[in-house]
């Protein structure tokens, strides 16, 4: 494992920029390999918290050594071996204090993390363990599965690095207290555990997609990371329709990113978006994932149905060209599966597009009873009243929406609608 193609003269040439290059290379390698390295170490120790600790120690060692001595020929083997050595040290320290603890097998370590697919899946399930808060699940998943540094996670969520570190430390303690160990879920809990994993990936995506384009320069691309995680899951669990459904939803939603804000960074409503800007290759990938979800043969779930709705928009050349009756039917299915006022509001909007504002208004009125202080409900109601020619009522309702709205950008859109009233 000597330095790569570098003699003493090469080592001496290493200046600041070479050190930076080596550092970036370590970080890139870590992004690719961290899941397999941490999963391998967790399988070895039976303890994700310890595995993460020793993996970080190995990474820190690499960041010090590699820029100085060159990157080893097989960096993954180096990181695994170093991590494993640190794990043995940790166990020795612990068993010196408590002789009831077993010793780790110190035999030769495998050079490569072969056949670690199951371990990576177990890693995802453990990072999203029910003993953890959603916030902790998200941070731990990004750290151990995504290979992000605390700094990258902090920048992505606009919190301090110390906050992220504290969150991860707490998460690891909770896993220990819950005796989570490192094992795949039992078959009777698989459904609920998978739902938690998918939900974490979705949260990561929505956090990433709420970033404006200006933020993108400094914030880690969380939406991209969520797509990557969903693709990894789809490979690991091809028989789960909702995994494909989630991937489809993320691809089809991402396809609209280039059109979702105007040149001033203001949000552009779906109906006003320049559809020529939509990313057609993302649409193709999303539709392919949706077909995979359907092929599983259990129908579409929570994410799959949302993806199918996104597909209706993705294939339509314009708002008028959209198959709104299909959108209505899909929202009805979604509302049956996961009833919520937000789904009802969206169904009402689809009904207004398919059959006109008169059919939709009673549906919105019903939602308004559940969500009396929602600016979105008031906004939709105002829009329907406008289309019905009830301008005075529309103005009152849109003004109420403005007063309820806490988001500057959405308020701008509402002001625009008010200004457009006859």
């Amino acid at each position, binding site marked *: 494992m000597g330095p790569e193609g570098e003699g003493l003269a090469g080592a001496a040439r290493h200046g600041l920029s070479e050190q930076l290059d080596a550092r970036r290379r370590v970080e*890139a390698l870590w992004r690719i390999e961290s899941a397999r390295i941490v999963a391998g170490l967790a399988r070895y120790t039976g303890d994700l918290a310890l595995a993460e600790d020793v993996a970080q120690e190995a990474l820190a060692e690499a960041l010090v050594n590699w820029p100085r001595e060159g990157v080893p020929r097989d960096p993954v083997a180096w990181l695994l071996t170093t991590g494993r050595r640190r794990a043995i040290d940790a166990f020795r320290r612990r068993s010196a204090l408590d002789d009831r603890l077993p010793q780790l097998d110190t035999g030769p370590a495998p050079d490569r993390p072969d056949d670690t697919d199951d371990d990576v899946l177990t890693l995802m399930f453990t990072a999203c363990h029910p003993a953890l808060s959603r916030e902790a699940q998200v941070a731990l998943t990004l750290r151990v599965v995504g290979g992000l540094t605390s700094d990258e996670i902090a920048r992505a969520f606009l919190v301090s690095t110390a906050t992220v570190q504290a969150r991860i430390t707490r998460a690891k303690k909770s896993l220990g207290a819950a005796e989570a160990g490192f094992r795949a879920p039992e078959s009777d809990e698989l459904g609920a555990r998978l739902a938690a994993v998918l939900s974490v990936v979705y949260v990561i995506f929505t956090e990433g997609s709420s970033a404006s384009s200006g933020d993108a320069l400094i914030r880690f691309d969380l939406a991209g990371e969520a*797509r990557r995680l969903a693709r990894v899951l789809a490979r690991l669990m091809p028989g789960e329709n909702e995994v494909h459904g989630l991937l489809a939803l993320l691809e089809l939603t991402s396809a609209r990113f280039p059109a979702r804000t105007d040149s001033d960074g203001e949000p552009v409503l779906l109906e006003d978006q320049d559809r020529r800007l939509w*990313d057609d290759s993302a649409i193709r990938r999303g539709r392919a994932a949706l077909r995979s979800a359907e092929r599983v043969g259990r129908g579409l779930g929570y994410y799959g149905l949302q993806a199918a709705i996104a597909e209706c928009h993705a294939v339509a050349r314009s708002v008028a060209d959209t198959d709104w009756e299909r959108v209505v039917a899909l929202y009805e299915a979604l509302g049956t599966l996961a009833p919520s006022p937000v789904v009802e509001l969206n169904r009402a909007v689809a009904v207004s597009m398919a059959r006109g504002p008169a059919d939709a208004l009673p549906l919105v009125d019903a939602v308004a009873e559940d969500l009396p202080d929602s600016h979105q409900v008031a906004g939709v109601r105002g829009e329907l009243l406008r289309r019905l020619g009830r301008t005075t009522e529309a103005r009152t309702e849109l003004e109420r929406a403005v007063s309820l709205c806490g988001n500057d950008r959405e308020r701008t859109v509402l002001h625009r609608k008010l200004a457009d009233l006859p």
Partner: protein
Amino acid sequence: MKFMLIMRATDETFAAYENVDFNEMIAVMGKFNEEMMNAGVMIGGEGLDPEDPGVVVDYSSETPVVTDGPYGETKELFNGFWMLEVASKEEAVEWAKRAPMQGPGSKMEIRRVTEIDEFPQDNEWVQKEKGWREQLGTA
């Protein structure tokens, strides 16, 4: 970020590959592709026909000159590409290093793919291109 990994080879590369078993070559390439699929980074790729090196149109003189490929004196041939979606250029480089390519003259070029929204949106031709992309079903 999207990157294109472009395989490049020379006559010497092809000569070295002549002794490699075809099935074995497909297997190692398949394993590399599978690894990128499992990692969730591969979003596309194509191979170019190695039997037909194509033609080259050279614009150095006033009238374009058409010659048989590969590219003039360098004898270098692009023979395939991958499209990856990764977080950094360094990550794309790491994947390139793992590609099962070897032998004299065998190279990989790594280029970032530009997105349509990086161009001035009010330009008439950028506007037209958006329409073309829609028609062609390309990103």
